[in-house]
């Protein structure tokens, strides 16, 4: 869990250029981290590569916060 969060954080910092301290479990990608719809698509691609899994478009649409991403990855590993 902690390891997953760290890896997710690294990708978010790199892609969205936000300060790491802002990346908490409750943070919303669009509202708190300044991501637009294109950023979200790209983040999903990065996460798929990083964790070697496939996130369907349907699932991706439901994920809006950092915590939801971590939970999704943990349950699909």
């Amino acid at each position: 869990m902690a390891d997953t969060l760290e890896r997710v954080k690294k990708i978010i910092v790199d892609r969205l250029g936000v300060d790491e301290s802002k990346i908490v479990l409750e943070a919303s990608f669009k509202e708190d981290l300044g991501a637009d719809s294109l950023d979200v698509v790209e983040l999903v691609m990065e996460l798929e590569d990083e964790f070697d899994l496939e996130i369907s478009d349907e699932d991706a649409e439901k994920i809006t916060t950092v915590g939801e991403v971590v939970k999704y990855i943990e349950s699909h590993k």
Partner: protein
Amino acid sequence: MPEQADVLIINTKQSLRTDFIIEVIVMKRRVVITGVGVISPVGNDKETFWNSLLEGKSGIKPVTSFDVTDYPTKIAGEVTDFDPEQYMDKKEIRRTDRFVQFGLAAAKMAVEDSKLEITAENAERVGVYIGSGIGGLSTWEDQHSVLLEKGPRRVSPFFIPMLIANMASGAVSIQFGAKGPTSSAITACATGTNAIGDALRLIQFDHADAMIAGGAEATIRPMAFAGFCSAKAMSTRNDEPEKASRPFDQGRDGFVMGEGAGVVILEELEFAKKRGANILAEVIGYGMSADAFHITSPAPEGDGAARCMRNALKDAGIAPEEVDYINAHGTSTDLGDIAETQAIKAVFGEHAYKLAVSSTKSMTGHLLGATGGIEAIASAYALRDQILPPTINLENPDPECDLDYVPNKARKADVNIVLSNTFGFGGHNATIILKRYEA
């Protein structure tokens, strides 16, 4: 003097027949340049750029950005020491192609130079017109590799907005909140001049009061190199990079690719005066023509180029004899330099031998869609400083190129009117004419 550009002066005369001949003269508003910004192989700011040109300094070196082992041409005018973080944040850098980064950087410097403040009050009267000849080539190459290696699901969602050639205009209008007319020229090597000329028209005819205009290009990449090499268009003087771009010289063997951006701030004269802007030069004419001849070769005798210059002179309402200096297209290709010389002689007659002509591409290389932008700046600075930048590497002039090309050394001169030529693949020709500003 009417205040509005759309005021018409209508003279009606009764002809021999009983109907009326209506003569309509549309008043064009005067337009001036109030700021410039440049990213180039000879400097990433306006003064370094200009001083390099006056010193006759070449920006051509061996290519470092990719492995050129298999390419016949191994040299270019690369932009070095460019730090996009000076102009945009990391996230923005990741989602913009290099040509957009150049365009945005040049636009920021130009706006700063002009001290133009884009506010809620004037935003709808400020527009952007920055072209690119090719667009996001590096993005295309990178993402095409991703497509082949990883499949369509891995192609970036930013691929299209990074690729499209209008995105320098888009990014600049977003950056400054400029809500006026925005468009982009794509006319190969005439792009920058078409962008400035079209922006000029938008101000002349009252669609905008100020325009951020020019060109941006970043194509020193394998695909563009391979294509231009196959077309046998580029110099292969790889062992002497600084001597490779040699317009009008017998030893020339093709153009040398450069990259960068040149952006100017155009303003309606009264708008500029009202805010106390520093006026660099007036833009008094713009002409275009098509060769309608061949996709890459110039028309015989420079026919298209000649008609283009004539159209610009007519638009400016000046006689050919009033032109003091021509910033030539002069790309260092065998056919192009001769055709342009023939065109100048056809338009200017005896005066062709009295005016000065130079090609600053001898130093910068050919920035393709950005070339009209940086050469408009060189032309404006020639007026400002009353000095002509040279054509370097002109050691043995081609007998068919027998004009005064300001060989090898900058020269002080009385310069009142400057004409800047650019001609592009597809037979696109564009010329603008600048004049020393007089109140």
